[in-house]
């Protein structure tokens, strides 16, 4: 899969009649006929009450789960028919993912966590290290580079996770409740990081949040309820 074009006002991400149901003894629909378009270079926020399908939608977009029907296109290319291996390659090159609960590897230091996605591509060790150090510096954690996750605060862990998601310069960064477990000061730091990297590296951010106060920072706000899109508001 080729590297995604960035910095253009084009549709970078699209879902068409997307459906996802879980088999839990009976079928439970988490995403129900969702049609969505995200433009390149924007910060899009998906908001909605708990259980509205936000995380499931983000997982489907990131290829972390498979829909039961519908299509997902990233820069015009469908990803629903890709094999697991092809999806892994796609994630490696084009998508950065920030999990809700940081999900850092506990026995690696902050620096090792950040450089890991680049190292597994077979990239040069020094290049990976330099890029990781740069990103940790950008998120303000140079002094904590050699600390393990259990030695970092929640906000610091989230910043490491964000730095990790950016190491391969992905075109799209998907963040699942990145500020959900943070205090307001750290929340502002994290949002400003997203804005800064959007400016510097022209990345597209799709952020899930239940905090409607953050929507002021977004160019597109998608409201979900019961697995369906209730409204889409774009900033003028």
């Amino acid at each position, binding site marked *: 899969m080729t590297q995604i074009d960035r910095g253009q006002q084009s549709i970078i991400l699209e879902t068409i009649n997307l459906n996802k149901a879980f088999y839990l003894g009976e079928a439970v629909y988490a995403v129900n006929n969702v049609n969505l378009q995200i433009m390149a270079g924007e910060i899009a926020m998906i908001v909605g009450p708990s259980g509205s399908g936000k995380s499931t939608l983000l997982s489907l977009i990131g290829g972390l789960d498979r829909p039961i029907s519908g299509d997902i296109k990233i820069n015009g290319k469908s990803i629903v028919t890709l094999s697991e291996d092809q999806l892994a390659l796609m994630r490696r090159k084009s998508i950065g993912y920030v999990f809700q609960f940081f999900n850092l590897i506990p026995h690696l230091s902050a620096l090792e966590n950040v450089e890991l996605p680049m190292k597994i591509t*077979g990239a040069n060790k020094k290049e990976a290290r330099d890029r990781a150090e740069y990103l940790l510096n950008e998120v303000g954690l140079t002094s904590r580079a050699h600390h393990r996750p259990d030695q970092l605060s929640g906000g610091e862990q989230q910043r490491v996770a964000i730095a990790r998601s950016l190491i391969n310069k992905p075109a799209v960064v998907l963040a699942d409740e990145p500020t959900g477990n943070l205090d307001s000061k750290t929340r502002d730091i994290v949002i400003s990081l997203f804005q800064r990297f959007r400016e510097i590296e022209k990345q597209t951010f799709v952020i899930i949040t239940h905090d409607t106060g953050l929507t002021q920072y977004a160019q597109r706000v998608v409201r979900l309820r019961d697995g369906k899109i209730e409204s889409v508001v774009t900033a003028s």
Partner: protein
Amino acid sequence: MSKLKSIIAVLPFAMKNLGRWRFRLLTIGLLVIMTANLSVLYQSMLLSQQNTGSLQAVQLELPYDLLVRLPEGATPKPLEALPAPLDPYDYGKGKSNIYTVLSKPMPFSHAENLLIYPCFSPYGTWEVWGIEQGSMFFTWDTLTGKAVNQIIPGEIILPKDYASRFGYRVGDTLSLAFFLNNNELNQVDFVVGGFLNTDNDLQKPLVLKEDLLKLTGNSPINAQLLACSEIRSHTTGLVRNMNKVYPGAEFIYPTMPTDRATEAIADIQSPAAWVIRLIYAFLGLGIMTIALVTFLERRKELAILKSIGLRFTQIVSLYLAEYGFVYFGGLIIGYIVLAFLLPYFHWSSQLTQNQLTSLMLNNALTTLGIFLLAVMYPILLSRAASVNQLVFARQIPLFTAKIDHLLRPKPEFLFREREENVRILQADSIDQKLSGAFLRHPGEHVKQGEVVVIQESWFGFRYREWIAPCDGTFTEYDIYTGVMVFTPDQPNAPKYPYPADILTTYDRRQVAFQSGQSNGSY
């Protein structure tokens, strides 16, 4: 090259995990060490008993290297048709097995056909051999003391001890009676021409083959004597190869008693092989349990790795590096420990170095196979699982089949598809209950490729997703048969290419039934 680099890139991560899980990996190492020692010691004990038993067996002194007694109906083959040395690379293609590779078949230098026939003598039933006139295998003494191997018509050569046992002398007349196939008795006198001049075992009275053929009404040749041009060291391999040329034949060769003794001891010891199997089973269970528990603990870590782009080959490399390091380390240490322990077991001195090496190699290969099988399940789970299944600890089906056609295309379904222009699926239904979940219900519109029903089976290891075969309406579901009927939006929507003869046969039967030629049964 980049693929190799990406595989190597996960190795430092694997090495960190070795430290992290040192105790459980140490357990695997100990299991491998114990298995290596126990299995090799036990098998060496069994092997030494076989060696002791076969040493006590006496080797036969024979003038030939192989006697083949052919089964009824078989004919002797010419020398050039007998087994040639096999190419070791034929192993695995059904032409040889490991034993024939290790014990190279011998090239034969000489072959003689003979007829073996029973007869009545004054001293009981004898087996007389009709040999070729200038046989290379036998020499005997006549009155002149000169060794001769040219037998003349009407002459009989007796085994060496018949002179002392029965009082025969050269020139005596000996009357023998041969039973023919028609139950006639054919009695004939032979002149004793000499006595075999060796101390070989299994000596038999010898006559000219042509004489015996005339006396027995041209009985078919039923034996062959063979000589090898090389000294042999593995006659069991020789017999195995000859079995392919003469299946069902009986073979007599000098080390036959040793081989028979070894086989008999191995038969007696065969229940003891279960001990070895149990040892290996414990090893396999131990490794699999530890690997599975570790997989369950590291699900989130695997999810993170997959989400940042770890590929399947890298996952496999990760597992093999982590467990393989421990396995090979355990094996090496196990054999070092074995080297110290062996002298304390008295039977070890009865084994040759080759036998011991062969046991250790066997054990290494077997434990390697068990190790690979044991770690296969966590690897397959890691491959099959999506990131979210790992993160949220959901059930991971190993196999998911997407089915958009009839798995058992019965003629009546195909007939209905044709007549009504519908598409039919049949899900598994047990006792009028669909063991699964509907994602779409009758009356709803569906798109081609959309999952309509999910069913789980094999205790959750397998999922079946029944896929809408066309854009259209899900019109009908039969609770008794599990049949789902779809009406396509487009009348010419593509159909699944079932074999044409299913419907052809059905049509013929329908026509026959309707015209009264059949009672309608199938």
